[in-house]
């Protein structure tokens, strides 16, 4: 018996019906397409009454296949499939024809849009007529999560998931967790001390019985799929045994290399070669910077193992741990393999360096610094212990010019977007400066002031009205050095005048950029990223914490610029998603998997066993199966798909010359029907 297909054409309010004659699409379907026994239109198919209509008609009309002509299947395929399930129809008998994103929104001419919609619906109808019922594949869930990145986003997500009773593995590439937030001085709009609110959370991470922390480590590879990811973590050799070390500080006190620019202090302060990044570091145990350490340099020069170098072993000698010292020069990278059910990506951002703009000195002027550098100057734990002193000569600056939108909203510098945090932190910087240097003067060049957020507007007004910062609307065209001063040339577009300010220091509100290795991370995780290399959420509104790869979630600035409260909220959101996922013992996977045909003897399978499929399969999902006679002798060796491993890419099916492998949901019959029904009007 032929299939009875129902076609439901959605108006989507007027989103579709304004430029597509939906009635005509439904009429044509009913009139002309074989197999279509029912066709109608409805204002909103995704609405409750719309879904009810779908369910009712499936029952009343005895439909065995459904085409919903509506928005992209990425929006509501699941919605309609779930609706169908309630009537007993197999969800894979339901297809979506994308007449909104592919017709009504991109073609203004109604006649054209209507014709194309008619085509698309016919193609999908033909595919649907070849749909087969598929059963979801059930897979067990590994009740453990991986969090990548130990900034505030990763910390929040890890703690939430761990508090929910699940094991968490937290991986941080630096020597300590804390991320950018640990570098900040005070935070807007409350001016509470960043470290004071962050470090207790860091300690919680360290002490949480459900959290396993890997610092100085990176995720090497991720295999598997939702519920069952196989992760390899590279623990970089730290030259310090974390189990033995007590963090007594003896080693970094004796280290003779004391003039290494501290990354944590944004190169405004120094550190030793064996070091902890900052006093509250977690773990509070050092790492050896092999680039600068005298011993490692000597070993590289002489091409000998580091433990054989005799140049400097002060840290080793002073280490009080006995009998085995905590310093281990011969330590090697270690690969740890873990299985997790879900992953949170919280890899953060990178600040645009201050050498990008030629007109701002291209990084040559020591006293032109970035926002993050100012944070370190203003921080009580910073290189100046919170005193605002300019880097060149340590003098207290009497005039500071703050420039907003440095990089941000400037497509020429590759950031067409707004970095969202700079208006607020610049207001904060001006305020902190005024608090510390009462007679000082702060000028702020801005393009727009964007302070949307709870108490944000009030905060920025306070900088202007109470703290006396002078806000100038306009861009700075050039900065040059004149004696000890920096001459800042800019425009005040409100008065229409040119402004020249003799400043002691300039602070650039530099853009938040994606991390340098964002693409590498994205590829490792098979997740999508946008044109600015920030990771893409699955839906900009409704699925803001899911990545394009099921079971992998996003938190914090790796997904786009955001401030601390937003980051924390998103991290908790991601954690909630992870916990929901880990709360079930089994997971249903889309049954879009490949299958090698099996036929009655004497053929058994049309597979001839050339195993190209096995070679091209990215997941090792193809196995060799011996088809045996009763006496145990092998008649034929053919391919077989391990459904548990198959991810449904279809590589095998396209590689098979005899087309003995097919992908469920995209079977030969289905694709053929779709291509075969292409007809242009």
């Amino acid at each position: 018996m032929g299939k009875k297909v129902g076609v439901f054409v959605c108006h989507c309010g007027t989103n579709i019906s304004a430029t597509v004659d939906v009635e005509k699409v439904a009429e044509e379907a009913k009139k002309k397409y074989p197999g279509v026994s029912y066709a109608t239109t409805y204002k909103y198919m995704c609405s409750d009454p719309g879904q009810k209509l779908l369910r009712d008609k499936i029952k009343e009309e005895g439909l065995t296949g459904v085409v919903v002509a509506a928005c992209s299947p990425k929006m509501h395929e699941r919605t309609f499939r779930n609706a169908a399930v309630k009537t007993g129809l197999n969800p894979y008998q339901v297809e979506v024809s994308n007449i909104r994103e592919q017709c009504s929104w991109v073609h203004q001419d109604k006649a054209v849009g209507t014709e194309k919609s008619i085509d698309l619906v016919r193609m999908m109808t033909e595919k649907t007529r070849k749909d087969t019922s598929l059963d979801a594949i059930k897979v067990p869930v590994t009740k453990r999560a991986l969090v990548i990145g130990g900034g505030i986003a990763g910390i929040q997500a890890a703690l939430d998931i761990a508090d929910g009773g699940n094991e968490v593995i937290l991986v941080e590439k630096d020597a300590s967790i804390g991320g950018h937030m640990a570098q900040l001085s005070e935070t807007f709009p409350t001016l509470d001390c960043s470290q004071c609110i962050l470090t207790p959370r860091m300690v919680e991470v360290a002490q949480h019985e459900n959290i396993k922390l890997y610092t100085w480590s990176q995720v090497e590879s991720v295999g598997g799929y939702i519920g069952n990811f196989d992760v390899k973590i590279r623990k970089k050799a730290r030259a310090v045994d974390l189990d033995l070390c007590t963090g007594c500080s003896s080693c970094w006190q004796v280290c003779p290399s004391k003039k290494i620019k501290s990354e944590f202090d944004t190169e405004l302060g120094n550190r030793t070669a064996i070091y902890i990044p900052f006093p509250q570091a977690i773990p509070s145990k050092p790492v050896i910077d092999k680039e600068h350490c005298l011993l490692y340099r000597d070993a590289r020069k002489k091409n000998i193992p580091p433990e054989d170098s005799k140049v400097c072993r002060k840290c080793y000698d002073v280490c009080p741990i006995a009998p085995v010292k905590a310093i281990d020069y011969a330590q090697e990278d270690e690969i740890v393999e873990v299985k997790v059910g879900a992953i949170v990506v919280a890899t953060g951002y990178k600040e645009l360096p201050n050498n990008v703009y030629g007109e701002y000195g291209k990084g040559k002027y020591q006293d032109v610094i970035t926002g993050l550098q100012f944070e370190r100057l203003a921080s009580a734990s910073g290189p100046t212990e919170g005193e605002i002193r300019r880097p060149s000569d340590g003098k207290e600056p009497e005039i500071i010019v703050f420039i907003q939108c440095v990089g941000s909203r400037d497509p020429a510098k590759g950031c067409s977007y707004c970095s969202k945090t700079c208006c607020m932190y610049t207001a904060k910087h001006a305020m902190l400066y005024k608090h510390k240097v009462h007679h000082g003067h702060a000028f702020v060049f801005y393009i727009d002031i964007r302070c949307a957020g709870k108490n944000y507007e009030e905060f920025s007004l306070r900088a202007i009205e109470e703290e006396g910062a002078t806000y100038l609307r306009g861009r700075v065209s050039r900065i040059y050095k004149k004696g000890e001063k920096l001459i800042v040339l800019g425009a005040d577009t409100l008065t229409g005048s040119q402004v020249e300010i003799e400043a002691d220091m300039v602070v650039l509100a530099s853009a938040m950029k994606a991390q340098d290795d964002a693409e590498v991370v994205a590829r490792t995780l098979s997740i999508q990223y946008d044109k600015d290399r920030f990771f893409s959420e699955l839906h900009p509104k409704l699925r803001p914490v899911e990545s394009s790869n099921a079971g992998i979630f996003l938190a914090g600035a790796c997904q786009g610029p955001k401030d601390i409260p937003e980051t924390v909220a998103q991290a908790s959101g991601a954690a909630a998603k992870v916990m929901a996922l880990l709360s079930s013992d089994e997971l249903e996977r889309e049954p879009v998997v490949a299958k090698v045909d099996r036929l009655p003897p004497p053929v058994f399978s049309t597979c001839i066993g050339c195993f190209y499929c096995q070679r091209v399969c990215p997941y090792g999902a193809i196995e060799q199966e011996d088809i045996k006679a009763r006496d145990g002798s092998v008649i034929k060796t053919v391919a077989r798909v391990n459904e548990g491993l198959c991810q449904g890419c279809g590589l095998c099916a396209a590689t098979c010359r005899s087309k003995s492998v097919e992908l469920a949901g995209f079977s030969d019959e289905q694709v053929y029907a779709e291509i075969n029904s292409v007809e242009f009007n």
Partner: protein
Amino acid sequence: MIEALRKKAEELLKNKTVSVVFGYGEGSTPERTRPVFITKPEEVNKLTWNKYCVYNLTTYLKRQETRKLGKPAIVVKGCDARTLIVLMKESQIKREDVYILGVSCDGVGDPLAEKCKACDVHTPRIYDDLIGEKGENKELPFDERYAELDEYENLSEKEKWEFWQKQFEKCIKCYACSNICPLCFCDRCIVEKNQPQWIDPSAHARGNLSWNVTRAYHLAGRCINCEECQRVCPVDIPLNLLNKKLAKEAEKNFNYRPGYNIDDELAMSTYNEKDNQDFVR
């Protein structure tokens, strides 16, 4: 050489190393040879070797009838031996299941076959025994090996289309090309798949184009250009030109020659991150 071949065949059959020898026998006229399947040591005198031994006997490795004869020794020229390497890589034969009687060859056919004009495998690159002199195989330059294509590649787009349409029009879908091909070993050819019927099996221009293009494509990175398809084509379609074109592209883009180096990955089952993509937008 013939004596050496017969002696070796006799020995292999006598000591039961193999149960059959696939070789060339004399044909009905001196200019012809035919395949012979020797199962008894006393019949080895049927074996011959001369410049008329054009065929690629490895095609008998895929046939049920000849497979039934047991472990074979097979007489192969340098070109034919490349087929064996492909068959092994594609899991169709195991190395230990075939005894390779390589023959060194100065070219076959009268006039000399096209495939022999730019041959650089006079001595097989794989064998258990070599009959004849072991010559030095100096790899010929790329351009020389594919020179036959120049004439056709230089045609205009319209000329190409018309040339091939004229050729494909002749096709009667007898499938002699795929039957003779040692590498067309599918149990069910794609043209036989009727659910769905991707390729129209009837002999008319549309299905003929699809068939001939698909047949050639399925040999991409595999065909060793033995020219058997072209030789057996009853309507003289120059099928090997298509195969050769694909071989040229595979070698140019992937630096791969099928059946040449046994350790090379099969070109169409692997990739290189740096593969050519000049044509991709």
